């Protein structure tokens, strides 16, 4: 059984084919959900963010011009929705500000949806400013190149690199403390 390409599913979804849209959504929902988990640290927020991302993707589906991969376009939308989500949740906090650590541990409700091995990593990422967290996410989990990250986040490749280096330094310290 041949699997339909993203472009074929998009074309059908644009014609109003709900099944095609749901197939496309299910293909990427896990990636976007875990993107949300790592970016927000909370299951509820990750689900809200995922819904916002896919609603936005569906509404803008006709604007997708097959320039670059659909995944890259999807992560670009996810990045901007995440920034909006962040600003709505924490309006007084800048993108480069170090967030206030609410709790060292993931809440019990979130722990149900969070694998034991993921907890430390998600906790560590929550201590990074959003700007650095986004670059780490896209580089190590999205597997994008620096040029792609630069395009998706609207910054230069050099800025993306320097944000990643800064983030790696902080993460090393955080994870060493956590593992100790």
């Amino acid at each position, binding site marked *: 059984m041949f699997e339909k390409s993203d472009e074929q599913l998009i074309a059908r979804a644009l014609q109003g084919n709900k099944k095609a849209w749901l197939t496309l959504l299910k293909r990427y929902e896990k990636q976007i959900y*875990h993107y949300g988990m790592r970016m927000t640290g909370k299951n509820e927020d990750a689900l809200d963010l995922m819904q916002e991302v896919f609603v936005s993707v569906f509404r803008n589906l006709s604007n997708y011009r097959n320039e670059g991969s659909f995944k890259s376009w999807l992560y670009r939308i996810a990045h901007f929705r995440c920034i909006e989500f962040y600003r709505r949740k924490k309006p007084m906090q800048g993108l480069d500000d170090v967030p206030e650590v609410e709790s060292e541990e993931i809440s019990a409700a979130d722990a149900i949806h969070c*694998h034991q091995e993921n907890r430390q*990593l998600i906790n560590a990422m929550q201590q990074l400013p959003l700007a650095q967290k986004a670059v780490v996410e896209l580089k190590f989990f999205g597997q994008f190149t620096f040029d792609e990250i630069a395009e998706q986040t609207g910054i230069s490749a050099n800025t993306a690199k320097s944000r990643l280096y800064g983030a790696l330094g902080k993460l090393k310290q955080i994870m060493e403390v956590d593992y100790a």
Partner: protein
Amino acid sequence: MHKQHSELSKNDLFSLWLEGDLSGQQVLDFEALCLNDDEFSERVSGANSFIMASEHYQSTEVPNWNRDSTFEETQTTKWWQWQGFASLSFVTSCCAIVMVLTGLQVRLDEGTVTISFAAKPSSQEVETLVNEKMLEFQQTQQLALNQYTKNLQQQQLDASTQLTQYLLSASRKERREDFVDLIKHVNEQRGDDQLFYARQLSKLQQDIYAIPMKSDIGEINE
């Protein structure tokens, strides 16, 4: 300067390593830096530990959520509700304005389509137009000439009739006057004759009366 250059090289090597794009010599340089440069080595080990942690990240299943809410039913629009009608209408109006302003003329003449953008007619059209006008003018003139001729003939006829009538009436009058004069003359002649005859008669009467008297006298004288 040298330190800055090597710093740039370290960053470049590090980013190339992260991208997995290190070439043969670059791998050697990278390994040498890892061995000799503690700061670089720590950065690499930090990155490695995070990469390992990310690789061990368990992508658990997504909790059940309302996927249908992301799909918005697109109502199939009827053909008369087509969004492009407004644009089409606008474009058509613009075309019409341009056609009017430029005096666009499309002519189909003997299988030849001619499109012209000026209100100025072609020489052939001018010739046809002139011919038409000339013919019309000629016809008008012909009609006017015919009418004029007819009027003139009628006028001449009227004049002749009037003259004839005049002549007839004038000759009748003259003849009547002549007759009157003749009758007058005759009457005068007759008057004169009557007077003459009256005188003659009177003389005769006198003569007649005078004759006895003479005889009386003669008798007397005798």
